[in-house]
């Protein structure tokens, strides 16, 4: 049969594409995978309809009080510590003064003590998270119990979620978290061998200690806070968290944006009323 060079190239190209494409389709159909029935949650796991936090900063007075909470989290999650490097820092929970936590609410007649009172800020696990909406791969997604999770395996590092989060809760691994700081010391100060680190190029944030909840434990920051952070099911009228927000005056960060954050900050506890 006679064909010219152009026809030959077209047939060769088409067969290659069909061949490779067909092979990969057949391959992916063949792979069985595990049965869903083989995998189940730990029976000790805590369940809820909507997890939330209540933070009462009147119970946090010394530097030690704040550090205990932030260290509890960062230590068990192998979060790298970037000293004096606010460009590349990674933080899941930290303290911010009132005027930065709730920008716009402070006024000129407010006392210095109030303006500079430190609050603990971390991911709000919003009911309508902007970050989940924008993630192109569902690497960040909302669980049925309300926790906004982060799938480090799927994250492509596009940082759209960081642009979208109105609360600045997210950090990106610009550098290798397993590397060293400028003094040559490891960035990860305390290694928890039962929890992974992350690698460069993915976004991370507070994930409400999902790995602790799964075995029946409270989030680390709540446990270390001596009652300043109360974690509970906001949809359960009998939970301590729900009782507090039903009886005390609480505010949330930037509620007007509609993301429905799940951290309620107690304002004016009984001591200050």
């Amino acid at each position, binding site marked *: 049969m006679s064909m010219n060079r152009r026809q030959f190239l077209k047939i060769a190209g088409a067969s290659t594409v069909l061949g490779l494409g067909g092979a990969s389709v057949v391959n992916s159909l063949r792979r069985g995978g595990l049965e869903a029935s083989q995998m189940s949650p730990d029976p000790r796991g805590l369940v809820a309809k909507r997890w939330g936090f209540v933070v009462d900063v009147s119970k946090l007075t010394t530097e030690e009080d704040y550090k205990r909470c932030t260290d509890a989290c960062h230590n068990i999650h192998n979060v790298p510590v970037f000293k004096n490097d606010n460009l590349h820092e990674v933080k899941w929970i930290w303290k911010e003064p009132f005027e930065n936590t709730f920008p716009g609410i402070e006024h000129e007649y407010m006392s210095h003590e109030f303006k500079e009172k430190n609050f603990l800020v971390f991911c709000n696990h919003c009911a309508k998270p902007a970050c989940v909406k924008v993630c192109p791969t569902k690497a960040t997604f909302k669980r049925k119990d309300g926790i906004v999770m982060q799938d480090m395996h799927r994250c492509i590092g596009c940082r759209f979620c960081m642009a979208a989060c109105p609360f600045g809760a997210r950090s990106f691994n*610009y550098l290798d978290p397993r590397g060293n700081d400028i003094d040559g010391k490891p960035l990860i100060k305390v290694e928890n061998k039962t929890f992974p680190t992350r690698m460069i190029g993915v*976004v991370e944030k507070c994930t409400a200690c999902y790995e602790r909840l799964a075995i029946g434990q409270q989030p680390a920051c709540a446990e270390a806070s001596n009652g300043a952070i109360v974690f509970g099911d906001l949809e359960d009228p009998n939970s301590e968290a729900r009782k507090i927000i039903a009886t005390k005056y609480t505010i949330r960060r930037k509620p007007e944006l509609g993301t429905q954050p799940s951290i309620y900050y107690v304002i004016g506890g009984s001591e200050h009323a």
Partner: protein
Amino acid sequence: MLEKALTGSKRYWTWIFVLLGIIGVGFIAYLQQWKYGLGVTGLSRDVSWGFYIAQFTFLVGVAASAVMLVIPYYLHNHKKFGKILILGEFLAIASVTMCILFIFVDMGQPMRIMNVVLHPTPGSVMFWDSVVLSGYLFINLIVGWTTLGAERKSVPPPFWVKPLIYLSIPWAVSIHTVTAFLYAGIPGRHLWLTAIMAARFLASAFAAGPALLILLVMFVRKVSKLDAGTEAIQSLAKIVTYAMTANVFFFLLEVFTATYSGIPGHAHPLTYLFFGLDGHTALVPWMWTATVLAFLGLGLLIFPATRRNEGILPIALLSVFIAAWIDKGMGLVIGGFIPNMFERVTEYTPTATELAITVGVYAVGCLVLTVLYKVAIGVKEDTAGEAEHH
């Protein structure tokens, strides 16, 4: 037709090798970033999008501007654009290529790019951005190559090209609208949360893109026999004028709303850009330069005497292009992150590595453009030559 790009003068080949050299340098810089992470750039926890995404945003606009040739030619029979349509389409291809590359170099885990395809998320604007940009590249490649091939053989293009060309018109508008939606749907960032974002993007695109195209057309006229004609250039220049007027007007509208309403959150980003915030003034000289260039370019374009002067016209067009590049790229993207969500200022300056990678990507775009233009010029010179013989 690609063989047209394989023969050329000494100047042509020197240019190709210079571009390849620049691409090589950019690639080596990228290897640094690959190894050490995006920490080699000036990006930070607060300013998480910077130079790469700024270029991406700007170039999507340049890519969309091909529609400013297609609409008059196909919808309004403005045949004067006949000679340069292909140049517009090829500019779109080069621009979209650069857009895709800028996204790639900006990603933290670029090897996972297929996750966007494997786990499609219709609720995410970024998903749609990848869809429409790929589609636009595809359309322009097919339409450009087919029409040029048909012209080479002196036959009309196949019937199915026409519907694709008509499709490219709303598609071009959509690529830039969707890119604008990346910003305009974010709840927390005041500079971006504005309904006029997409309109501003399109106006700026239709000013900067055709401006660049006219400059390229004038350059093509110098180095080859392909002459678009003064009327085509003037027609396109008028489009740039109207688009830039709209662009400047829209920007002033933004300034009014931010300043007159008095809402601090609204005004802070613009204050940072033009006057500095808390003593941080890195972008102030850039924004004022952009302002001066915008009005200079616009002024020179509005008055026919200066617009028709082909010595002054390039200055006007370059001013418009640079002003749009600064405003849409650096001003818009960086300004959205400053002040941060805690009302603090973390400034951003691109690093040398970052700039090297950026220039490398631009060199790839220039290479694609050079090769495609060489093919287009080659074909058109041939057919014009044959027409003369008949």
